[in-house]
């Protein structure tokens, strides 16, 4: 959004004059100052760069990214892709990036849900509920995040050992080794079922669009849910049945030191997720509250006067306007959550910072390691920003 493209800021500009080569000419002065400033910036950057390269040479510290293809040999506790210590540093770093993305994506979704609930609760007419929400927000926002993470991690370490694991529901075990959940033995049939379901969701969305377009044309509302049900649930179930409906439960059981089988949620991941979600939700709650309160009470009354139901008022009148206030600060919170996930180092969750730190320590190539960390966060943050800006533009006020 450069100023020159926004018609509101466009001005006719001064009339063109020939350039005079004198200090009195405003434009000549402008050029001279800009040349100077750019020159200083470039010189400083160049000096830093050459200084670094020279120092590295003098101290005979290896440089370059050749280490990425060397064997890493570092142990990683949890990974979304198959990883073995005999893999390369590049693979290890990829595991770190995926671990960061995992906690960031789940964290953003949960923080948004929790934050919205708390934000709305704070506006509730129920005295107890609104006060509880207020206390939550104030306490969570005022404590340093690192402290909260250590708090959660210590609590999770206080759980009993695997042999005395808590067993709240059949097949679910809670111990200081994490949470164990039953799962099914995943086969290709399940992948196909999942694929059909995703296609079903896309088709339902397209169908809903068409239905809405027709409703605008003839005013008749059309039911979307029967087709949606068939597309999202019916067909995938049929595909699953066609594969012979494979269903072998994979239930965790205690063998040797620990549970084997099932899904594991490690205490490190869990502590980081809880910490990030509860912390960020405190801020999001305030943003949501601000957004809703920014919508004039008259809008509610006017909409109700038109005979709209309360849910419709919220969905069609209030929320679209509240979102305009909510979305921009929300972007900052998503970015914060993502960057704060680097505090994982303190509690042993192996995100990109943890693995890149180990890498730079073992290879001695600190500059490359830090550069990789910066590149990763920059890429993730810019992606979030781009998406949120796109979304913001989409819901922005369109004047007809």
């Amino acid at each position, binding site marked *: 959004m450069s100023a020159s493209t926004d018609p509101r800021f466009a001005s006719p500009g001064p009339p063109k004059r020939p350039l005079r080569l004198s200090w009195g000419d405003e434009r000549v002065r402008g050029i001279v100052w800009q040349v100077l400033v750019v*020159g200083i910036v*470039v010189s400083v950057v160049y000096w830093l760069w050459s200084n670094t390269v020279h120092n590295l040479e003098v101290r005979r510290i*290896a440089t370059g990214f050749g280490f990425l293809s060397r064997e890493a*040999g570092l*142990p990683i*506790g949890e990974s979304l892709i198959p990883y073995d210590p005999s893999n390369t540093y590049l693979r290890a770093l990829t595991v770190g990036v995926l671990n960061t993305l995992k906690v960031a994506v789940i964290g953003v979704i949960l923080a948004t849900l929790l934050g919205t609930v708390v934000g709305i609760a704070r506006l509730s007419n129920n005295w107890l509920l609104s006060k509880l929400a207020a206390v939550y927000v104030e306490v969570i926002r005022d404590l340093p995040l690192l402290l909260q993470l250590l708090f959660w991690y210590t609590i999770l370490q206080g759980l009993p050992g695997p042999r005395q694991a808590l067993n709240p529901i059949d097949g679910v075990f809670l111990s200081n080794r994490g949470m164990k959940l039953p799962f099914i033995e995943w086969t290709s049939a399940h992948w196909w079922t999942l694929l059909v379901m995703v296609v079903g969701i896309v088709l339902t969305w397209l169908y809903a669009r068409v239905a809405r377009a027709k409703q605008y044309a003839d005013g008749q509302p059309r039911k979307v849910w029967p087709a949606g049900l068939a597309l999202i649930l019916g067909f995938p179930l049929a595909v699953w049945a066609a594969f012979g409906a494979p269903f072998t439960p994979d239930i965790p059981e205690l063998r*040797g*030191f620990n549970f084997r089988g099932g899904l594991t949620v490690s205490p*490190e991941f869990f502590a980081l997720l809880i910490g990030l979600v509860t912390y960020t939700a405190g801020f999001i709650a305030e943003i949501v509250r601000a957004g809703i309160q920014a919508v004039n009470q008259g809008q509610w009354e006017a909409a109700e006067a038109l005979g709209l139901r309360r849910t419709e008022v919220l969905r069609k009148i209030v929320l679209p306007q509240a979102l305009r206030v909510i979305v921009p600060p929300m972007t900052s919170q998503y970015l914060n959550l993502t960057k704060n996930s680097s505090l994982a180092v303190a509690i042993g969750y192996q995100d990109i910072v943890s693995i890149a*730190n180990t890498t730079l320590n073992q290879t001695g190539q600190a500059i490359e390691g830090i550069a990789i960390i910066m590149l990763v966060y920059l890429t993730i943050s810019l992606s979030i920003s781009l998406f949120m800006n796109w979304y913001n533009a989409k819901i922005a006020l369109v004047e007809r």
Partner: protein
Amino acid sequence: MKALRLAMTRAVGGFALAATVTLPVLAQQPAVSGPTLDTIRQRGTLICGVNTGLAGFAQPDSQGVWRGFDVDYCRAVAIALWNDPSKVRYVPTTAQNRFTALQSGEVDMLARNTTWTLSRDTSLGFDFTGINFYDGQGFMVKTSTGVKTARELDGATICVQPGTTTEQNLTDWARSNRINFTPVVIERLEEVVQAYVAGRCDAYTTDVSGLAATRSAQPRPAEHTILPDVISKEPLGPLVRHGDQAFADLVRWIHNGLLTAEELGINAGNVRQAAQGDTRPDAQRLTGRTGDLGRMLGVDNAFMVNIVATLGNYGELFERNLGPIGLQRGPNALWNRGGLQYSPPFR
């Protein structure tokens, strides 16, 4: 748009102009200050990177004074330079940030349970100045688990610090013995030990000396067992930045001097006397009466007398610091007593 393009053109023009004007001058700037030893002398204190707190090796006592085996090496260097063991500033470093601290010049030397490896000697840009402690990696488990050897650890969760040779040895060992384990990787020593004690891990692995130190610091040491298996070679020693040979030589020969003193039977109690009356040629060279050896290193000829009088010889350093945490001399005995500690001739 047009205004924007004009600004861009100006900026690029400015870039080119500024580059041609300023760059040649700055490119001549010297990037590195003088050798480490000169810097230390000018500063008047030695900045020594030590562990964040490992009983026996480096730990502040109740008065906040750093004590330990590694700490004594820092003090020995300060005594050699200024005959004053207090002229040291200790910088606690974690396993991960220690190398960056040394590379960047934040510390002058590291005396921090650091294993001498080829890649650290070369691509990290360091010089190891000797081996002051022969160590090996082991495992510690809770006695109540009943585990007797490391081979029984298949399927276990193992706590380890990142950025150490320990981490790599662990995966090497697991691969060659076909053992599956789940790592829990935590940077700070206190927190990794806390995770082990809390039961997050079945075993904690590091150098045996570190295990002994950690075990001795527990309220009930008998609840923890150090397994007999030693899975790696961990030659620990002080290290300095590559590029100042004079400083590396000084640190190296302080260690050798401490060994020589023990070999000659010169200790804190008799060193002053030996400096006066010992007639053995070796002892005369060590105490600086002959040979001019201190001057060759750029310090006082009597530097070893001052060091031994204040701190003792290698054996005394070991007994005072590592004896209380239950470490035996083992491979760290002198070469002529069945150990590996061997000084090249002090002459």
